[in-house]
């Protein structure tokens, strides 16, 4: 089985790349792009570089960031969850309803919010693994069902007036850091460790990479998938909680088309759309790239239509660079 010995990667850049990928499970290029973008924005606008603006960026990214974490897990396993935006809306409405209309204490409302999301995810996972219906279709259906259910529960109206303890989750600022940002960071760290360093995470990637390999390795792929979709729904529920507490209301129209933004962030961060590769840290960087772009363009008073074009362009560019690199690797 002798083959010509291939050269070890040379140069500081390639060396750094390998280190980042192996140790931290994140692509170095994504981080460089983020920093580069930040530098450009700070040159173009004097308002960009300030602690309070950075907090704004993190705060604006918090909801999408949690959704993107959900998307990363599901995409890494070769699946797809199009319902997370609607589930975000549904969860927020459920939580607000429990807190305001039913008058339940905050912990129960919080549990109900995340639980509603997890339940929706469980239903998704069940139909996908038992019913043999493709994930695209199941989650597309759930997208409509969850949104409709949110409108039914709320009677189409915003449910206003959450209790103080609950509001703290979205509007509190312990030590000057907004709570959603703290929650995002904690969840991101935990989820990064799960995906990169635990058996569950490695199996998730393997299932997306080659489902057959996972099956022959003795992994219970169906159960694993069920767990992933439930996790995705639960995270969407958490995002719904953050959203509702940020604007102090259960809004049935919350999260419309957020699933696409979340998937975009995951892909910009290096997740493979078809499965087998993904990193939470990368996804957060991807979400921040979008956040910095939007924030910077807002500060420069560029209309939101151009912002959408810019994000679309960044997405294509990110995937192009990624594909280019894959080619380079296999050429060696």
């Amino acid at each position, binding site marked *: 089985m002798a083959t010509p010995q291939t050269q070890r990667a040379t*140069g*500081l*850049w390639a060396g750094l790349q390998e280190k980042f990928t192996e140790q931290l499970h994140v692509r170095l290029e994504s981080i*460089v792009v983020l*920093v*580069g973008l*930040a*530098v450009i924005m*700070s040159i173009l606008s*004097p*308002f960009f*570089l*300030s*602690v*309070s*603006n950075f907090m*704004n960026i993190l*705060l*604006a990214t918090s*909801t999408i960031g949690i959704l993107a974490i959900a998307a990363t897990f599901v995409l890494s396993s070769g699946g797809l969850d199009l319902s997370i935006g609607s589930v975000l809306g549904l969860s927020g409405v459920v939580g607000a309803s429990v807190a305001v209309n039913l008058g339940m204490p905050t912990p129960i409302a919080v549990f109900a919010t995340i639980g509603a999301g997890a339940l929706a995810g469980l239903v998704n996972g069940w139909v996908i693994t038992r019913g043999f219906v493709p994930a695209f279709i199941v989650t597309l259906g759930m997208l409509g069902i969850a949104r409709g259910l949110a*409108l039914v529960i709320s*009677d*189409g*109206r*915003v449910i*206003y*007036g959450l209790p103080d303890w609950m509001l703290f989750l979205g*509007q509190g600022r312990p030590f000057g850091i907004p709570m959603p940002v703290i929650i995002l960071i904690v969840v991101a760290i935990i989820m990064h460790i799960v995906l990169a360093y635990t058996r569950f995470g490695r199996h998730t990637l393997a299932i997306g990479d080659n489902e057959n390999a996972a099956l022959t390795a003795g992994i219970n792929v169906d159960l694993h998938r069920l767990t992933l979709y439930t996790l995705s729904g639960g995270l969407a529920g958490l995002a719904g909680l953050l*959203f509702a507490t*940020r*604007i*102090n*209301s259960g*809004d*049935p*129209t*919350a999260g*419309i088309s957020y699933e696409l933004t979340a998937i975009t962030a995951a892909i910009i961060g290096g997740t493979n759309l078809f499965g087998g590769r993904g990193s939470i840290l990368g996804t957060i960087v991807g979400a921040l790239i979008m956040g910095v772009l*939007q*924030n910077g363009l*807002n*500060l420069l*008073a560029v*209309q*939101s*239509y151009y912002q*959408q074009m810019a994000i679309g362009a960044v997405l294509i560019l990110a995937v192009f660079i990624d594909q280019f690199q894959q080619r380079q690797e296999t050429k060696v």
Partner: protein
Amino acid sequence: MSNTTKKCAVGMAVLTWFVFSAPTSAEGYGILMKTLANPYWGAMGDGVEAGAQGAGVDYYIQAVESDQAAESQLNVCNTMLERQPVAMITAAINSTNLLPCLKSAQEREIKVVDLDENLDPAILDAAGIEITFSIGSDNVLAGAQGAEYMVSQLGADVIGPVLVIEGLSGNITGEKRATGFADKLTELAPGLEIVASLPGDWDRGKAANITNDIMTRNPDLVGIFAANDGMALGAVESVFAAGRGGDVIIIGVDGNSDAVKSIKAGRLTASVAQLPYLVGKQALENVKTAIEGGYVETNVIIPTLVLTKDLIDAGTEPLLEFVK
């Protein structure tokens, strides 16, 4: 050290150097709209710019991608505060989504103006937010004017079904117009029964569908009141497609350019014209007055005008100038 590393290092240094530097202070008015897609908001944007230019102040206008993007608007609002405007003039998507940002603005002593009365005073009180003033049309009055016109055309003794198409659920503007219309209608013509009052979410397509469904249920529909022109025009299409154009009185609210065209063509019956251009212009002028310490009423009402084919053709009404 390779080139890339050098660049990285320089970048890092620059970033660290600036992180805690204070940004240069700025003046100017921040104006946050919903979306510029609807001609109503486009006209208001024009009025705002005219007012600002007339007042000779710096300003920046932002909008979001749709009039349902609640969180987006909140994020943009927060970002606009970073530019340290002296006043924030906002048209909130619903009565609660901008509250954290407005609270923040208040803490930074930035004057807050409610453009087009999207905020609920009760909610503002509960949140402890004091706005400098709110300016807009009296939406309840606008709805009532719609009812008056409908009764004037149909007669006070007529019996028949009427459809009301509401705005986006939870939006106070839509609620006021619908309620204003309904109350006045009952008062003037008890024989005209509102058989359905459904939210059209400011969407032309949705309104068209609602109209179709209700016409199927009530083929003898005599009147439709829609809380904005976009939805009214959707209803118009459905009514004419069903061959009942001319048998149904259709009234919208806003008086935007699309509505005016439709009225001239004899399709839309009437629109209670808000004067968005005037609202925008006067909002800016009033902000300048407020900042210079002058007096501005807390609730500035801009009048509304019922636009009909006759009125437009005659062209003598002075307020027509502000219908863009």
